[in-house]
């Protein structure tokens, strides 16, 4: 810590020198541990890419080949032909787009109702919203499945999309926190000018909430992209499979070659990785504020 120096300024000189040396050693230790841990986090990615570029014999050798030469880029093409990943990709993109629209639509309205309008019993009801976060999904899974079956929705995307239009406790919470921080004078002024509540939400609140809106957009996109149990339960037709479901069926075929499997995995990861690279601060802040999870 830098201000240790300030505190120790008046102490005898050789003590200070000893202290500075010890601090250097401490920093070095911190870096060494971080680099070793960093390996643990990065190596699976590298191993995935390395394997995806190997020939079949290179996969099964000891010591393992780390940099396959020449890289077999055609594994990616083969994997894409082996299973209709292009199709899965479009399916996932379509699903994610619908869910994101639903998430933005429902949660902005709900959060507005919980933060910018004062009504009797509001905070009691909000406690119920928070309590639903604690409910394990398994408890509602079967009856919800039955409801969707009665509606004839099994095998299609509606069971995965419609719930997004009915709010999500985490996103409602995040947006409510954000909306509460916007000065109430702004809405009061708009109200005096004859603006309706919906108008205030649209013209005053939303333009000021861009960071929060970006955060929930990204999280709902990634959660939907990564979701496995939902598609597993509701989608049965290969043509409608999402990327994760397609990848799983790829894994479960025991004859799938490892280099192609790793290529397919890499392709499944690319969108979330790109989003992360461009927007990581929204993830970090979203998680720091609300304890949202990556998955």
């Amino acid at each position, binding site marked *: 810590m830098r201000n240790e120096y300030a505190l120790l300024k008046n102490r005898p000189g050789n003590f200070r020198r000893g202290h500075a040396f010890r601090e250097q050693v401490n920093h070095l230790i911190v870096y060494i541990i971080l680099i070793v841990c960093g390996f643990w*986090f990065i190596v699976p990615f590298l191993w995935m890419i390395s394997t995806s570029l190997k020939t079949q014999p290179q996969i099964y050798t000891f010591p*393992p080949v780390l940099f396959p030469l020449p890289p077999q880029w055609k594994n990616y093409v083969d994997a894409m032909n082996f299973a209709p990943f292009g199709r899965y990709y479009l399916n996932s993109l379509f699903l994610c787009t619908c869910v994101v629209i639903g998430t933005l639509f429902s949660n902005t309205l709900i959060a507005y109702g919980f933060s910018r309008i*004062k009504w*009797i019993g509001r905070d009691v009801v909000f406690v119920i919203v928070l309590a639903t976060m604690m409910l394990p999904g398994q408890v509602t899974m079967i009856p919800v499945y039955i409801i969707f079956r009665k509606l004839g929705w099994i095998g299609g995307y509606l069971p995965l999309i419609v719930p997004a239009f009915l709010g999500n406790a985490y996103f409602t919470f995040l947006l409510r926190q954000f909306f509460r921080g916007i000065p109430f004078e702004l809405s009061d002024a708009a109200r005096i000018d004859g603006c309706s509540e919906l108008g205030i939400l649209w013209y005053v609140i939303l333009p000021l909430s861009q960071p929060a809106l970006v955060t929930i957009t990204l999280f709902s996109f990634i959660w939907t992209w990564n979701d496995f*149990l939902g598609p597993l339960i509701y989608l049965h037709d290969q043509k409608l499979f999402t990327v994760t479901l397609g990848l799983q069926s790829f894994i479960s075929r025991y004859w799938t070659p490892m280099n192609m499997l790793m290529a397919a995995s890499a392709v499944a990861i690319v969108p*979330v990785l790109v989003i992360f690279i461009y927007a990581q601060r929204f993830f970090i802040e979203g998680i720091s504020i609300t304890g949202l999870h990556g998955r």
Partner: protein
Amino acid sequence: MLKELRVQKEKIRSLTKQEKRSLRLGLAFISPWIVGFLILILYPIFSSLYYSFTDFASFRPPNWVGLNNYVELFTRDDKFFLSLYNTIFFFLLAMPASVIVALALAILLNSKLRGMTFFRSLFFVPTIVPAVASAAVWMWILNPQWGLLNAALRLVGIHGPPWLSSPDWAKPSLVLVALWGIGSEVIIYLAALQGIPRDYYEAALVDGANSWQRTFSITIPMITPVIFFHLVNGTIWAFQYFTEAYIMTGGGPGNATLFYSLYLYRNAFTNVKMGYASAQAWILFIVVMVATLIIVVSSKRWVYYEE
């Protein structure tokens, strides 16, 4: 509860026109949530309780069977106890490990040296990878013969264990995989660490406390609320743990990774014993609630809240 409702009712009756208007407006705005809550949460909770007392099997109307499902689960179904045991074992293995690793990484990241944002991103990336993809990669890394981990161990002269294909090593292997995705927790701990007032450390420094003493007398007590949060979330996580086990081991070898949710899923959707699975779901619900309650009650002893 009832009394409170009555009080609320009285209040509503005595509302002014303005108050009634905002009540209507507020309810209109939250109406998507109300619909979702009724259809996707409240009704399913009770109907799953009802199903749990029936022989519901999806395509024929449910018959009331009383406590049969529960009796069978607790007296005749060995796999049920095994799945409960596996889940608790997994929880007890994964939870302390993830608290220690996440906290340790967060403390390191909080040391305010150069390059910390880089490491923070590095630790975080795995958490946004689809669980299916990370399962595929880890299955390959943990491959007993040709996987990277055993190859690395072999280079230093250790004969690595068979990981996922051994009943003894399968659960620890899945803990390893789970630790790879610990980035969110690291971020949450880091945010808490950065919220600790600096004066505390400065005061301790003046008193001559070394860095270990500072860690254990200031840092750890100050972040106990986050550890509490992590524990509560971790309990629910362990009982919902599904995708990785479904893909990497499918419950094997020898049911060593037949976790609670996996067995529940199988009964519900593979064996189509939905009444039976609903009973499992309700037991899960009660176990999670009791566990959470224990953590909440015990928290009064070990969670430190600032006045």
